[in-house]
């Protein structure tokens, strides 16, 4: 009986020590992983660009952890599918916030979705980074939302300036995708052009799922447009450029950044890109960091990265820097990010203004005749 009591006591002691060890290990393990959320369109019509920053975030996660993580703790980026509608985006955000309780979340690159999820971001009270371009997102004045690419008015101003000053347009026409981004860009460009004495002769729009834009292009041609400015997403950009050529339209086209991504270019022939200028977020091949990132991305994923993907990579690195400096407390992170100046990323140098816009310049590019190679023309900075 005495032996039985002794054995039982020994057994219980061992079990207690074991439990303590397991709990301690779990606690250490939990401390060693910082979970960051991301809502990315993995399926649906927006998955074309979603795949870019899905990959970039995974690459950033790998690089950050290889460099020692956040003071020894690894980061794990947990991705929820935002799909293509505002409701799915909101659900994805709520899910990741409620289930994972991250100190930080990456949102999508679609302004409509960014605007839709802003109230939930306010409720969650954690910093987020987004890449939607519409000015309306920053105008919400949500202190938690940080933009990591140029806003649409920057791109639109640059496009309008270049079209007027360098392409000497006197009767520009505008065509745009019918949503916050397209309409915002078109309105900003139209306003600037009118102020400069080159009022657009026409402004045509098309829906996200439209495939035939011949009516809109012919309308602009018939109104005498001498240059066409286009605010586009990747797939419709390719359709537009093809249809310009098949309809025999010879006007120069100035296209927004969505039309210059690899997903668009791979659908086109060199002849489709003749007389096409563009404004892109960043000309990655123009800097050593950008070039290195291009090569590493291609080696890992077998496809070319676009400036959206590069922006999310930079965003993740900036987030890691912030966490290393001030920890993961949301208010401290928010305060740190608000004061960031001159953070050198692979795509840009980031400095957040009072509306938390981090990028204030774009690159004008053109395609070398007979090729699909982009060549850098100039950088336009808009304060």
């Amino acid at each position: 009986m005495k032996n039985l009591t002794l054995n039982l006591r020994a057994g219980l002691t061992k079990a207690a020590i074991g439990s303590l060890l397991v709990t301690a290990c779990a606690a250490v393990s939990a401390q060693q992983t910082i979970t960051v959320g991301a809502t990315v369109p993995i399926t649906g019509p927006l998955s074309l660009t979603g795949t870019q920053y899905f990959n970039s975030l995974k690459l950033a996660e790998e690089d950050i952890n290889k460099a020692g993580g956040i003071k020894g703790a690894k980061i794990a980026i947990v991705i929820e599918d935002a799909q293509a509608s505002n409701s799915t985006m909101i659900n994805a955000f709520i899910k990741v916030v409620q289930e994972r309780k991250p100190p930080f979340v990456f949102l999508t690159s679609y302004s409509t979705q960014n605007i839709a999820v802003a109230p939930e971001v306010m409720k969650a009270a954690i910093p987020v980074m987004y890449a939607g371009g519409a000015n309306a997102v920053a105008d919400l004045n949500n202190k938690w939302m940080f933009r990591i690419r140029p806003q649409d008015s920057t791109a639109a101003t640059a496009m309008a300036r270049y079209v007027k000053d360098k392409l000497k347009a006197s009767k520009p026409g505008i065509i745009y995708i019918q949503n916050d981004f397209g309409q915002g860009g078109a309105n900003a460009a139209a306003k600037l052009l009118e102020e400069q004495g080159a009022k657009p002769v026409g402004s045509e729009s098309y829906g996200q799922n439209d495939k035939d834009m011949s009516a809109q292009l012919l309308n602009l041609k018939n109104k005498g447009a001498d240059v066409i400015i286009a605010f586009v997403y990747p797939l419709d950009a390719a359709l537009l450029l093809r249809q310009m050529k098949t309809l025999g339209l010879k006007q120069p086209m100035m296209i927004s950044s969505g039309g210059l991504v690899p997903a668009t270019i791979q659908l086109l022939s060199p002849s489709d890109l003749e007389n096409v200028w563009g404004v892109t977020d960043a000309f990655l091949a123009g800097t050593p960091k950008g070039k290195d990132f291009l090569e590493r991305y291609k080696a890992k994923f077998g496809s070319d990265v676009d400036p959206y993907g590069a922006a999310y990579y930079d965003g993740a690195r900036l987030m890691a820097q912030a966490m290393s400096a001030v920890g993961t407390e949301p208010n401290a992170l928010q305060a740190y990010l608000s004061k960031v100046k001159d953070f050198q990323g692979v795509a840009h140098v980031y400095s957040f203004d009072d509306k938390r816009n981090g990028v204030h310049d774009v690159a004008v590019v053109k395609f070398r005749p007979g090729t699909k190679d982009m060549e850098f023309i100039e950088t336009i900075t808009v304060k």
Partner: protein
Amino acid sequence: MDALLQLLVNGVALGSVYSLVALGFIIVYSATSVVNFAAGQFVMLSAFFGVMTILNLKLAPALAYPLAIAGMAVFGVIFYVAIHLPLQKRPVVSVIIGTVAAGIVMQNAALLIWGPLPSRIPSLFGDANVSIGSSVVTVHALATIGITLVLIVLLYLLLYRTSAGRAMRAIAQDVEAARMMGLPVTLWLGFAWILAAVFSAFAGLLVAPMWFADVNMGDPIALKAFAATVIGGFGSVPGAIAGGLLVGLVEILGASYISSTYKDLLSFGFMILFLLVRPQGIFGERISERG
């Protein structure tokens, strides 16, 4: 006037694609009373079969196109056996829901297999254009119209000049009576699905050089084709053709002369108008009149 000609050709070419898909709807509906809500994904899959045979396998066009069409015919059989047959004794709404679910599976499977990047299938006619005055019309658009016409004629001949067509029309009129007359109804229903799949194959292979093969291409096409079917008259072959052409023309001419922003509103508004004023469509017969 030249711009009008360009718009008319584009509108008819667009309408031809909608007509082909609408004919797929009609063929299945007439035989089985099922509205196939996966019709758009049939078109998408056809485009990707074209991607496989033309771009990936780099087969000669004389082999690539028939192989892609044959592939869709086989898929039609698989769809009939896997979706329709197991559900055919259930209420028709169960079969319809089955097609919706199958469509979602098809789209996501395509995304897994081919990825999100669209593909461009070169047209058999290249980038050749025809100039008429100062307007430019692509040979591909003209060919789309021509091929659709040929298919419509072949369908007419099949339905009205062959015993197979007689059997299909008998089953469409009254499936139980057809069964009692000794017709192998199960086989002919399967043939209807194969025929619908083949029409979708032509639609997909004609549309992919114009619009690119993309896993999300099916739904917008199916919606417009459904509107075409409603306008033309459910169950009516001439109705599917007329409806498709009308939707294509309303879309293109509406965008040009009324509003590009609201062109979808115009197309679907037209459909709603028909539902209110003439619900049986242009060529459809009232349900009470079906014998």
